[in-house]
């Protein structure tokens, strides 16, 4: 028997030890592969790599890759732990550490290779379905099937590298003493959580200082830049870790001291908790972080998806805005307006507004008469006295300068008020100064005529906008046309992709959380089975077993959920000035949906776990 035969037989004869590791690897690779299929879709090639969307896409795939990396490392560790005893046997029979390492390395590479192939095959089988869903979500008709060569290549290369590195590194973690120890005693109990109040205190202090610094906008926060955020992330992660482990320890101690310790099944629950405190705390920590990821992804990305209409309207107030520049001929203008009106007529009811302004084109400072201002829709009409002026914004979200009017040869006027919402399309002019009609007439700047149209039910008339935009194209010298319908369509597409990414990410996090929990329960199942079978012989009813298991499972499922919700609430509280009400609404809906999902999966997990646990043979 050659060395490689041992490696292969090791895997084949002990399939069930390897299967969970194999499956979690397949899962991670599959998710990455599906995402790459989307990311490399020919249709998405149109997206500029430097646009927000392109960067988000890149960031997301990077993120998924990192995540897969961590997830695979996690499963490899869990797997190695399960195998330590077998390794001990090998060591006793005389295998050198080097041989053991080579064996583990080859085993991992074999499993990794098989996982990559399986994932890609699976991916190719389900990708049509997946792309169909993507097509629906993205509302992109051209999102058809294609041969994802680039995605296959990328997945194979990246994950081969990953497995190579992981397998190489992991062999360093094989602990000779632990393996031999395991041979002597079947149950080595894990270390109980160490009490470390200093670390807890330190991490809490560091995190609070960092957070406070951001809140108070210290200068060094900005100068540190990215470094600051990395430090903040690490310290928050550590803080959460210590809060969970130390909190767990504290609860266990309280429970043991408490009077109800010797009541009914409490002793079993608490001692179980104490014995497995460390791994329980680690699982709770992992799940909390993953869930926080899910919550943030859903809240941020879904709410941006549902905000599109409002945001579009604030950027481009009108369905169509035709701006006739001084260089435009009257004939051309007439012809364009007639075309727009006749096209809109066919589409449905619309309102037309006519306005005009004079502008200092160099500084993009515009002047508008009160009558012209009042002729526009979407803002309150105003009246001005002869010695007053009014200011209206040109940029969305930017407070206009109110005193630049003084740079111009107009009589001294009093500031009468401010309209912070941009009255015409954003960014066209920096600011509009609204003047009494008589003063406006005397100004010597070129006149820009504005024809604005508001179509009813505009969100459903994207084809109308496409028609008009195709016929009338903007010309720098003569006329400009802009449409919120067009913008809406593009934005909608971008947000759909964001939504899609968010959906993918939360899906990944959620299934990762669930599979971590599943593998965790699986690994401990055998030992628990023996234990409960023993206690049942002494006289523990099914109901009592189920009560112990329910408490333990509920802890593993709902503590992370609660912690993640609290953390999310903290994040939202800290950012309350920057977020809209839609965000709260979406978050509440999202969390309720997840809560339902969790309660459902809790009962399913509990049921199947109990069934396996009480299954005699």
């Amino acid at each position, binding site marked *: 028997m050659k060395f490689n035969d041992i490696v292969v037989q090791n895997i084949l004869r002990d399939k069930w030890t390897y299967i969970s590791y194999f499956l979690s690897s397949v899962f991670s690779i599959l998710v990455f592969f599906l995402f790459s299929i989307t990311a490399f879709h020919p249709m998405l090639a149109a997206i500029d790599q430097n646009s927000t969307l392109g960067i988000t896409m890149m960031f997301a795939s990077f993120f998924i890759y990192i995540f897969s990396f961590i997830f695979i490392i996690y499963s490899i560790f869990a797997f190695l732990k399960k195998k330590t005893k077998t390794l001990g046997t090998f060591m006793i029979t005389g295998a050198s550490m080097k041989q053991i390492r080579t064996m583990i390395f080859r085993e991992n590479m074999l499993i990794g290779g098989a996982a990559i192939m399986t994932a890609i095959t699976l991916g190719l089988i389900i990708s049509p379905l997946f792309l169909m869903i993507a097509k629906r979500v993205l509302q992109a008709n051209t999102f058809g099937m294609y041969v994802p060569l680039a995605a296959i290549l990328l997945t194979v290369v990246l994950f081969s590298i990953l497995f190579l590195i992981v397998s190489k590194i992991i062999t360093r973690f094989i602990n000779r003493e632990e393996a031999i120890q395991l041979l002597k*005693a079947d*149950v080595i*109990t894990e270390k109980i959580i160490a009490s470390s109040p200093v670390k807890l205190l330190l991490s809490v202090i560091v995190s609070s200082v960092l957070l406070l610094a951001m809140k108070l906008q210290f200068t060094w926060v900005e100068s540190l830049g990215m470094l600051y955020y990395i430090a903040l992330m690490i310290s928050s992660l550590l803080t959460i870790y210590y809060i969970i482990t130390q909190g767990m320890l504290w609860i266990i101690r309280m429970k043991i001291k408490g*009077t109800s310790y*010797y*009541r*009914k*099944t*409490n*002793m*079993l629950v608490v*001692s*179980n908790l*104490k*014995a*497995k405190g460390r791994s329980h705390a680690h699982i709770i920590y992992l799940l909390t972080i993953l869930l926080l990821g899910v919550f943030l992804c859903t809240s941020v990305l879904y709410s941006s998806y549902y905000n599109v209409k409002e945001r579009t309207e604030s950027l481009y107030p009108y369905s169509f805005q035709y701006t006739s520049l001084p260089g435009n001929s009257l004939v051309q203008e007439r012809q364009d307006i007639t075309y727009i009106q006749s096209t809109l007529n066919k589409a449905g009811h619309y309102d037309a507004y006519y306005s005009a302004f004079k502008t200092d084109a160099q500084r993009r400072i515009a002047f508008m008469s009160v009558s012209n201002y009042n002729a526009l829709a979407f803002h309150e009409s105003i009246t001005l006295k002869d010695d007053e002026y009014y200011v209206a914004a040109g940029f969305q979200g930017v407070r206009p300068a109110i005193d630049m009017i003084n740079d111009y040869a107009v009589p001294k006027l009093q500031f009468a008020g401010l309209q912070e919402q941009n009255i015409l399309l954003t960014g066209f002019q920096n600011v509009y100064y609204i003047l009494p009609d008589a003063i406006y007439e005397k100004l010597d700047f070129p006149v820009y005529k504005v024809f604005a149209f508001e179509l009813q039910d505009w969100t459903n008339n994207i084809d109308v906008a496409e028609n008009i935009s195709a016929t009338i194209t903007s010309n720098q010298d003569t006329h400009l046309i802009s449409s919120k319908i067009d913008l809406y369509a593009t934005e909608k597409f971008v947000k759909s992709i964001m939504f899609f990414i968010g959906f993918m990410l939360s899906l990944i996090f959620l299934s990762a959380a669930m599979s971590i929990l599943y593998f965790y329960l699986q690994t401990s199942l055998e030992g628990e089975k023996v*234990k409960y079978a*023993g*206690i*049942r*012989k*002494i*006289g*523990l*009813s*099914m*109901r*009592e077993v189920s009560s112990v298991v329910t408490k333990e499972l509920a802890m593993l499922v709902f503590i992370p959920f609660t912690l993640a919700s609290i953390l999310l609430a903290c994040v939202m509280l800290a950012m309350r000035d920057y977020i809209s009400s839609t965000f709260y609404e979406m978050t509440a809906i999202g969390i309720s949906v997840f809560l339902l999902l969790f309660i459902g999966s809790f009962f399913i997990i509990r049921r199947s776990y109990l069934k396996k646990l009480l299954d005699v043979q």
Partner: protein
Amino acid sequence: MSNTILHVQQLHKEYAGEVVYKALKGIDFQLADNEFVAVMGPSGSGKTTLLNCISTIDRPTSGIITINAQNPYELNDDELAKFRRNELGFVFQDFNLVHTLTVEENILLPLALDSVDIKDMHKRLANVAQLLGIEGILKKRTFEISGGQKQRVAIARAVIHEPSLLLADEPTGNLDSKAVNDVMALLESIHQTLKTAILMVTHDAYVASFAQRVVFIKDGSLYNEVRRGNNKQQFYQEIMDTLAFLGGGQHEI
């Protein structure tokens, strides 16, 4: 004869499979109050099956078992668990201790499940710990003590609620000869001080010679029984002789 604590009538146990295997073929058996009985027989004779049926771990195919005038198979799962905790004590070959609990907690587990008053609990614990000589290891975890100590702890757990019947399945199977003597001496003294009826399955003639009566099973039926007289040595010899008749007895010792 005094009151019977255990009454077994026409007990049959069949294991379904491609070929139905009859493990017990109609056993009639009685155990008196405060009696110490050992069950012996070659491997596969059905002695452990008998014990499992009596201990309510394995449901018999037919026949009646009454323990303290109660038929445990008429109880539902909750009642059965309570019945085991109150009426029965178990000692197993593999000790069957819960490794997440300390020695003390293991012993108290049956009482805790019944929500016995804490003061009462600790009083009983002190008594039983003294009887078994394990006062010094109460705070230890189960993997920190030796096999002999583990079996003592298991016995302590089995008797702390003063069961009517103590069931022992090869209680010395995992112990060295020194520990065997210790544990058997303890069982004997429990039998005498607590007046507990004991039913023990073993394949070791020496261990069996601690009992008052040895019942032999062969191929799922009762074969013979031997009662102890005044001389333990002679009793041991009788057991050995019977085992020789049964076949396969000698080399199993």
